[in-house]
């Protein structure tokens, strides 16, 4: 168990089964996965490919932190997250989140919580390569910068 890396940034294709195996066990009855894939059209604009960049060590640290948050909220959940960086084509998998629990409600809720938090606090950025130009995409939540879910800065109270 000790060499299993539950939270990873990789630059190779993600194998979904690997994440499922990380969270599977005799105690669980439900495993959910979230698979984020590269979509061709966003708001009518055609994407040719994407480029993901990360601050890798901090990104893995923040993924582990999301794992800690989940453990606190759902003690019987087990989580694994892998995010890919580099050039990704349409339909490529950018992120996989696997959550297991004895209970299905937890498996769904904790999984959705994980993707929301990734989009808030994990230093990974996406550059869209459109047909007619490129753009570093800002906060995908399309809210004002860091709303309720903003990263908790050291020394700030939540």
């Amino acid at each position: 168990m000790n060499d299993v890396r539950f939270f990873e940034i990789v630059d190779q294709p993600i194998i979904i089964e690997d994440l499922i195996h990380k969270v599977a066990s005799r105690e669980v009855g439900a495993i959910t996965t979230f698979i984020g894939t590269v979509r061709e059209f966003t708001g009518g604009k055609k994407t040719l490919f994407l480029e993901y960049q990360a601050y890798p060590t901090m990104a893995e640290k923040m993924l582990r932190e999301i794992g800690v948050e989940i453990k606190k909220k759902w003690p019987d959940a087990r989580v694994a997250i892998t995010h890919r960086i580099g050039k990704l084509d349409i339909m490529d998998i950018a992120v996989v989140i696997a959550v297991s629990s004895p209970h299905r409600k937890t498996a769904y809720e904790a999984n959705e919580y994980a993707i929301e938090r990734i989009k808030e606090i994990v230093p990974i950025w996406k550059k869209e390569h459109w047909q007619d130009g490129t753009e570093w995409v800002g906060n995908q939540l399309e809210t004002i910068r860091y709303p309720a879910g903003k990263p908790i800065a050291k020394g700030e109270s939540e």
Partner: protein
Amino acid sequence: MIQILFFAGIQEELGIDRLEVEPEGIYTVKELKGFLQHTYHSSTLQQSMTAINENFVTEQEKIKEGDIVAFIPPVSGG
């Protein structure tokens, strides 16, 4: 020396991904941002969060010799 890391849009705007500076006269994140903006006229730096040694910090956070300061523009993983 302090090490400074730039990512995504900021990295592209400035044309560099890292920088080492002597922290003389720079005691806080706010002061470092001011210094960099004065030097590089960045338009995106102001909107970014800051991390010191991989922890998010506020603009009031003190910077020490040896720190790694990263500017984190709004993230878009997932």
